[in-house]
């Protein structure tokens, strides 16, 4: 572990990123700006959250934990809503969906006594749930938006045949949810064979007993699978509605977009 004692040594891994940037420049892939931004942002954000978590751990105050998680949900919703620009009420939809997923998961973990009610458990696990739910929410909403635009004639034909909005949008909703959840479902299926998940890798590297790491990882996997599915399904069933009127009419998007 000697190599990870200083920030300087952690930054040495930037050498790898430099190679990626060089490749991007050489091949003119225009990825270097995004990679650079990602490096800077992740460093600043991780450093900040490191200090925040350190501070919060010291406080041992559950309200501070709750506030921090709520902040994460709002930031996730803001990020997701920016991705799904033309989805009406996207921000509110993601706040509800990710919020419900996070609360349901953490309350269940606490109620079953799987984790203790301390910042050390709630913040990282909550963060994982919120982050993964955010990604699934963005994927679900953008897919519904794009498919509704592309398959407008079919949706209109279904409505004209007396289908409700829900019935008319059902094939699109199904595809969107499948697409949003496939990465997680596949990752869960192949876990341990193709890749060792992050939490487990972290614990093993930090010197924990591999079997204990597996135990925690199983909790994490099921928690993610459940909560992310809940979030995506909520986002799907809430967001399609904003494309229709209560009288089962497809809303027309504004001309300039």
């Amino acid at each position, binding site marked *: 572990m000697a190599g990870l004692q200083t920030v300087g040594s952690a930054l040495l891994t930037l050498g790898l990123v430099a190679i990626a940037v060089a490749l991007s420049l050489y091949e003119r892939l225009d990825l270097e700006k995004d990679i650079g931004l990602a490096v800077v942002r992740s460093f600043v954000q991780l450093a900040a959250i490191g200090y925040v978590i350190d501070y919060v751990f010291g406080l041992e105050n559950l309200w501070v934990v709750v506030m921090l998680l709520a902040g994460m949900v709002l930031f996730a919703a803001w990020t997701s809503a920016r991705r799904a620009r033309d989805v009406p009420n996207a921000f509110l939809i993601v706040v509800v969906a990710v919020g419900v997923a996070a609360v349901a998961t953490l309350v269940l973990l606490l109620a079953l006594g799987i984790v203790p009610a301390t910042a050390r458990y709630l913040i990282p696990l909550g963060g994982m749930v919120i982050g993964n739910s955010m990604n699934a929410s963005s994927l679900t909403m953008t897919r519904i938006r794009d498919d509704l635009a592309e398959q407008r*004639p*079919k949706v*209109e*034909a*279904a*409505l*004209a*045949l*007396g*289908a*409700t909005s829900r*019935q008319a949008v059902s*094939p699109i909703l199904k595809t969107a949810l499948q697409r949003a959840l496939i990465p997680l479902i596949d990752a869960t299926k192949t876990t341990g064979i193709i890749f060792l998940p992050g939490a487990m890798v972290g614990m093993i590297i930090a010197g924990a007993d591999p079997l204990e790491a597996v135990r925690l990882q199983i909790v994490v996997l099921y928690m993610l699978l459940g909560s992310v599915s809940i979030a995506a399904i909520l986002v799907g069933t809430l967001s399609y509605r904003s494309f229709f*009127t209560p*009288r*089962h*009419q*497809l809303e*027309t998007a*504004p*001309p300039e977009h």
Partner: protein
Amino acid sequence: MAPTGIEIHGLGYELYGAEILKDVDVLVREGETTAIVGSSGAGKSTLLRAINRLIEPTSGEVYLDGEPTSRLDPLELRRRVGMVFQVPALFGGSVAGAVLYGARLAGKAADPGRLLEMVGLSASLAERDPQTLSVGQQQRVAIARALALGPEALLLDEPTSALDEGARRKIEELVTDLNARLGLTMVFVSHDLSQVERVADRVVVLAEGKCMGEWDSDDFFSRAGERARRYIAGGL
């Protein structure tokens, strides 16, 4: 079911500040085929969608057999007034699945073979994948799909615009045939005047969202309608 007249009263439709329809009055008599003509952007398709409330008019009212459609359940209204679009947009797996889509939702029994024969297709196509049919055949399936609900009226939004000349004529013949055989009230949107002459009993001219007048087809295509025809020809 008995054919139904459609009365459009002072209909207006505004979308993002643009007036698409302005105070439109049209009378579609029961059992007749009324063509709505006009250049693109005149509001023809919008007017058609206001009849079965695929869009919500901003002002005015559409009466179906004397009943204000704003007070009808939109799903019920759409089952009574069928619609055929520019593109077939078939779904439901097989041809039979496509034909029965609306009828199944409504819990109505329908015989796909008989419906296919009604639109001049062989009942043996029922199990085919709709995508393997020609576009002309697909459009017939779309008409059968609308008929499966036993509608009182049929709205046709440029149903031949995606077809070649031969297929176009066959759809026109089917439409006039269905009108004669079933006595279905039909509203037929078209920008092709020669087609209108072949299918329509009445002609309504729209320009920039306004109704420019209504004619009996015979009058419209004789001297009486010459000015209106020239006006449209200039705008097309």
